[in-house]
């Protein structure tokens, strides 16, 4: 190693250091370069397509359970019963946003466009139970009872209509149901094995919830959900 090289090394070290320090100094003294957003006071505006928490407008929802089928992580649980007018009545609609991965597949397939992403992104909570969003405010039992009653009424009405030709139905089920309606409450879409996990989760059982989250692969074990093969195909949208 010659002297020239030796001194060159020193010079290079000093020069490159100085170069770097000039850049850091420029950032250091220029307040315009600061890009921090003071979060709770300043907020950044989520963009239009922002995928925040899911929201289901149950007034528009047709309980088709497309979202349940398409969800890769089974975070949506839906229960519906056949109403007096043969339309499905939503009994409960729950989204576990602790499990949701915000992929947006459910929003894309939703035929009535009732399911949307909101721009909400703040949901810090101390209990896992709070991470389950309930969209039907009424008690499931009440809805079932009411629908059953309506169905029974409608059946009775239909029976009566056969004789008297008059119809009168309650406002919830405006269209009169003609013919027989042996409505049996049915559960739709939710894969059988995934189903028990959700109530355990809701009840605030962290262990059960944990397992479900960590090994999504093992959840639908015996009977893999094969959503697309199910008989009813609504909506013509490609996925």
């Amino acid at each position, binding site marked *: 190693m010659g002297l020239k090289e030796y001194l060159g090394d020193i010079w290079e070290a000093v020069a490159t250091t100085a170069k770097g320090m000039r850049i850091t100094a420029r950032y250091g003294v220029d307040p315009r370069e600061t890009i921090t957003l003071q979060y709770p006071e300043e907020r950044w505006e989520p963009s239009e397509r922002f995928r925040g928490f899911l929201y289901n407008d149950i007034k528009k929802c047709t309980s088709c359970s497309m979202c349940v089928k398409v969800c890769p992580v089974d975070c949506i649980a839906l229960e519906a019963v056949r109403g007096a007018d043969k339309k499905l009545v939503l009994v409960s609609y729950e989204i576990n946003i602790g499990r949701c991965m915000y992929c947006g597949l459910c929003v894309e397939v939703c035929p009535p466009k009732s399911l949307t992403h909101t721009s909400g992104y703040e949901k810090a909570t101390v209990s896992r139970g709070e991470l389950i969003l309930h969209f039907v405010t009424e008690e499931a039992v009440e809805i079932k009872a009411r629908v059953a009653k309506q169905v029974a009424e409608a059946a009775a009405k239909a029976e009566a209509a056969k004789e008297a030709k008059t119809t009168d139905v309650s406002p919830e089920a405006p269209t009169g149901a003609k013919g027989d309606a042996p409505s049996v409450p049915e559960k739709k879409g939710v894969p059988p094995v995934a189903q028990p996990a959700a109530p355990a989760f809701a009840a605030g059982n962290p262990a059960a919830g944990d397992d479900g989250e960590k090994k999504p692969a093992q959840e639908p074990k015996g009977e893999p959900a094969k959503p697309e093969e199910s008989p009813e195909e609504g909506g013509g949208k*490609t996925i």
Partner: protein
Amino acid sequence: MKAHAEALPTQEMLINMGPQHPSTHGVLRVILRTDGEVVVNARPDMGYLHRALEKIGERVTYAQFMPFTDRLDYLASMNCNAAWAWTVEKLAGIEVPERAEYIRVIVCELNRISSHLIAFGSFTADMGAFTPFLYAIRERERVNDLFEDICGNRLTYNYVRIGGVSADLPDRFLEKTKEFLDYFEPKIPEYNNLISYNKIFVHRLANVAAISGGEAVAYGLTGPNLRGSGVSFDLRRNEPYSVYPKLDFDVCVGTGERGTVGDCFDRYMVRINEMRESVKILRQAIAQTPDGPVMAKVPRVFKPPAGEVYFRAENPRGETGIYLISDGTVNPYRLKIRAPSFVTMNIFEKVTKGLMIADIVAVIGSFDIILPEIDR
């Protein structure tokens, strides 16, 4: 060191580096056997993040697997999304509208920039210079903003769909991308001045863990790691897919400018230069993007024909290969993901022999591994 060790026998020390260690880029565990500071053997131990993605793939539909590809290489979700889409399209023979292909290329290259930024930033942070990391994150934030505009997410995008992309570009997206490029391009020389050619930095990396071209090929290194060893091979050019043939760009290779070809510095420099090339590609792609639909006609119940296909795409970390077997049902029969980081770790034990502990960090950083991809 050797002679010294013979004169004075020392005891080897067994150290666990990781799974919780600031520089193992996740939950990699390296079992180090060291003689003082000199590493006798460094054996990687992985699997701490194993989520059985391949098994999941056999249980979900083709479309449903798309969000899982986000979780493969989360710093380059777009590339993984697109790789999956291209694989399935190759299997099913789906023609994708040209606009969609251009959009894919644009988002992939943007993602390549953001991924290389993280590689650059975390690497310099590993080397002890924390500031460039923050600068890299700052630039990446802009890419994230663009991605948020386009798909609504900032990390796991799930934007590409089999047969196209999920939504057309939002208003002003291309202009915003251009603005970003104009902002970003001058930053690269700044990085070089700040850190790349810093004497200490060069000294830390030059001649460390040099991998010859032949070795790199034999050990299955791909992407920037392979090119760092002086092998000019880029799937975008050598096995072109999508609209890459229509775009003009250079393949960056390691030249050994500060040491031997294939050392850590070359691998690092390839990434820096590739960012520049990505900017070049992006400018062309933006200019060429045609109008038209962004989604091909794909049946909603998608059942590709039975068959086996292997597709590989040039991702920021190398070649992501997907070996897909279809039995004609809605679910993939077998899905194997050849993750570049995973294969790269093959050579890790070999190149780290005789290095120092600090060099292990440099090697991990220069390989730019990412753990979710290794463990899947």
